[in-house]
């Protein structure tokens, strides 16, 4: 038998699909199904452990048995396709949002998406954030065309359930989150070595999303004009940029104007 055929048969055995593996194992010692079973068991157990490590809060919320049922269902639909088990769980939020038996509890998919974003922020490229002093040294003329480049770790997660507090809740304090009166946007980022996240104010959410897509300062002020006068809109936009600088969300301030040398 060719190498590729053997590997196809063995993989089918591990995935518990039809195979002829029992005929291919040498005799002697422990029975063939017990020996092969070591590999089949290890595959499921290892990836279930990866999911449990990646989503501990979800496990606390669901309980051990229910989480195990989730891991099995997920694994059946998403056999691992990446070399690094670090990324195995990346489809979990999508699975929870669409699979029967799980999509009826939409808060689960939202919690999974937020936990995954925190994990991604943890592993993202390191960039030292800009500071309020960087804005202070901008020439007046630079503001109109100012663009914000955010940290590579920044993620925005939309939620309709109050899942953000669960990410840091103690295991005993896990409870089904309440439905929010209005959907919110949660920002996740890592300014230094600790991942931060917080729920954004409604107007802040609109501005952060637009700024992330490349809007200039002038556009950001425009977005605020429907609910505020011009002076208030500018003050709010400046205030938010200052806040993002203070909290370390911004990597760089980009503008076309020459730097003042004063």
């Amino acid at each position, binding site marked *: 038998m060719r*190498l590729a055929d*053997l590997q196809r048969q063995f*993989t089918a055995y591990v995935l518990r699909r039809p195979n002829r593996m029992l005929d291919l194992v040498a005799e002697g010692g422990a029975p063939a199904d*017990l020996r092969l079973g070591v*590999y089949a068991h290890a595959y499921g157990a*290892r990836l279930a452990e990866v999911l449990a490590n990646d989503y501990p809060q979800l496990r606390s919320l669901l309980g051990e048995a229910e989480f195990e049922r989730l891991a099995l269902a997920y694994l059946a639909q998403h056999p*691992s*396709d*990446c070399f690094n088990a670090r990324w195995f769980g990346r489809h979990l939020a999508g699975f929870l949002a669409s699979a029967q038996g799980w999509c009826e509890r939409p808060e689960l998919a939202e919690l999974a998406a937020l936990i995954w974003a925190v994990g991604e922020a*943890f592993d993202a490229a390191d960039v030292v954030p800009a500071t309020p002093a960087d804005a202070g040294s901008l020439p007046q003329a630079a503001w109109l065309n100012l663009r914000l480049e955010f940290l590579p770790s920044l993620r925005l997660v939309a939620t309709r359930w109050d899942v953000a507090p669960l990410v840091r809740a103690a295991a005993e304090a896990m409870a089904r989150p309440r439905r929010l009166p209005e959907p919110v946007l949660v920002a996740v980022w890592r300014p230094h070595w600790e991942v931060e996240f917080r729920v954004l104010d409604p107007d802040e959410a609109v501005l952060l999303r637009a700024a992330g897509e490349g809007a200039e300062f002038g556009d950001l002020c425009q977005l605020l004009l429907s609910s505020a006068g011009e002076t208030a809109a500018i003050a709010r936009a400046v205030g938010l940029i200052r806040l993002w600088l203070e909290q370390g969300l911004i990597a760089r301030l980009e503008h076309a104007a020459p730097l003042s040398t004063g």
Partner: protein
Amino acid sequence: MTSLTAAPLGFGLGLRSDHYAAILERRPRLDWFEILSENYMVGGGPPLANLLCIRADYPMVMHGVSLSIGASDPLDENYLNELKKLSDIIEPKWISDHLCWTGYGGVNLHDLMPLPATEEAVRHVAERVRRVQDRLGRRLLLENVSSYVAYAQAEMPEWQFLGAVAEQADCLILLDINNIYVSAFNHDFNALDYLDGVPAARIQQFHLAGHRNYQSHIIDTHDQLIIDPVFELYGEAVRRFGPISTMIERDDNIPPLQELLDELDRVRGVAASAVRNRAA
């Protein structure tokens, strides 16, 4: 006469995140660390930052589990890129992975699956090792794995298979002493035959680890102390091959750093007396 292998590094440990703080605080006396390459194939973050701090003070080698050198799927270019990128940052003394396959048809089993000891597999693996070595610009070390099944189609014993791959590929060997013990138990061969059958000139590193014995078979769990018979086998290996770079792999049930340093002292003692025996 020039040697194929690098000068021995002495006695090391696998670098694990549980120990970052203790290592950075105490700078313990040990000769080198082995890192798991895949753990650092990320954009950035605390683990990579800790790694670079520790690297400043200790020699390192990179050990991978995902190369899948024996697979019939094509080599994963993305993985090779990540491996090269990391090795450019870490500048490891050497890079190793396993004589195994880890998936088929795009599915990854995240396990070290045994290869059939056939001439076909020797040719297949050797050709791929050569390509990886060209890519990395250095010789690769291949490690013998613990296995729980053997194949009816095997044409030679495992040690002969490992030796043939190493010779045909012109690569080096990472000999895992515990894996020899585990596979000898599971497949009922004599572990000393293994030591006598591998090409001594290509052995550049030893692994030691603990396992779990289920009576009918042993599973290579890396969550226990090294047992006495594995220490004895290690002594036999040092007597044959000399003071090869040795480290302890501990991946689960991880104790405080000091316990591993104590275990490493025991390894040093066994090696020292085996080296004395060798000279005698």
